[in-house]
């Protein structure tokens, strides 16, 4: 079973939504490896579901990352300033992928 990722970015100054859903198997190998590596380094399945500030932050992006794999399902919600450093790398990569998917519509 391939790992499936659902990514969604909402909010921000422009209020635009960026999202994509893909299986790691669909990606070029180096990108798939990079995603897996980041999920490992983050210990994604061990992260709290909500890494959010106490009040909704103004004009920041809100991120929802859902991972389905043989390890199970897990979802993480975070924002620009609440996301830990390593999470930012994953977000950056997911943005890049989501923008690529945007072209295909």
């Amino acid at each position, binding site marked *: 079973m391939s790992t499936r990722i659902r990514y969604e970015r*909402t*909010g*921000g*100054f*422009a*209020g*635009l*939504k960026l999202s994509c859903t893909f299986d790691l198997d669909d990606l070029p190998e180096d990108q798939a490896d990079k995603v897996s590596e980041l999920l490992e380094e983050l210990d994604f399945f061990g992260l709290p579901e909500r890494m959010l500030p106490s*009040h*909704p*932050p*103004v*004009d*920041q*992006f*809100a991120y929802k990352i859902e991972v389905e794999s043989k390890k199970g399902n897990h979802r993480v919600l975070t924002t*620009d*300033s609440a996301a830990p*450093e390593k999470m*930012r790398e994953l977000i*950056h990569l997911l*943005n*890049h992928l989501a*923008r690529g998917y*945007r*072209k295909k*519509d």
Partner: protein
Amino acid sequence: MHRHPLTCILPPHMLKEIIRNGNERQRAFALQTLQISAQFRGQRQAARDLAVALALTAAPGKQRVVYDAQGGAQLPGIPVRREGEPPVEDPAVNEAYDGSGLTYDLFSEIYGRNSIDGNGLRLDSTVHYLKGYDNAFWNGQQMVYGDGDEDLPPSQRLFNRFTVAVDIIGHELTHGVTEYEAKLAYYGQSGALNESMSDVFGALVKQYQRRESADQADWVIGAGLFTANVNGIGIRSLKAPGSAYDDPLLGKDPQPAHMRDYVNTVEDNGGVHINSGIPNHAFYVTAREIGGYAWEKAGHIWYLALRDKLTATSNFQQAADLTWQTAGQIYGAGSLEQQAVKTGWAEVGILVNETTTPPPSQGDGCLPTLLRAIGLKQI
């Protein structure tokens, strides 16, 4: 005959004492009275100069610092330009510097407000936040700006750097003002009002910079932010919500212009950037109906409502009622300005509840009314 308290002729020395020693609200009322008196005597420029001079002598004035995050996440980053220093090579730095200065000037020169907190708070901006970051925000202490999607090749790039439009800078700074004043909670209708205040005053900064009247202005937020690859004129339109962009990659501007099209969603904190179209349009119509420069009367009503009346949980109906009441207090019950506010909200599907605030209980002569209004006791 009872005169409206703000047009009383008070001795200037009393007003100047209030300006020197009063709190922000008292100073603003006194400044306003001096300006109105000067205007009646045909001294518009003198009135404006007076406002500037007095606003700046009351507390430390404009103090700006711009930082460079150099593509990283650490805030604020390295300081690259401080108040009074000349322009640098980096256009993003100069835009952040100039834009925050212009926003300061609007609030100071027109509304008598000394910076975001009313007390000379330093205006800190960070540019080059992260890489490929197509956004800007106010984090509670400072402004933060990305470079757009500069990491894409030009043929694919959609966003320019976020300092490119002065109204974006004004929008972010106004979030700071709102945090110090009404503190509109950032979700649902109060959040949409919060967003709208930022769009309104962001638009007014741009109009003030260009000395454009309400009918000359484009009323578009973020004009110049999109590259030529996007089919759109900007991020939002106060004049025609829903018309700013319609693009195969980005989608269509989702803003409603009327309550019947209010968007019920959980995303974006209940659609704060979407439903802001409704109060945005109410402001635009109010300004259109009054005519002239939108920052002078419409902006004044909205500013005083933000500062003195709106609360954290205010919804659209309350904002309509409170802006209508504010207009009545400044310009008189039944005034053209108050009617314009009523029309503004009616055009977006909200009927103002026409109840006035309770009249003062003791002595309604000119001087006691004014002194009560600005929180001073008559000796």
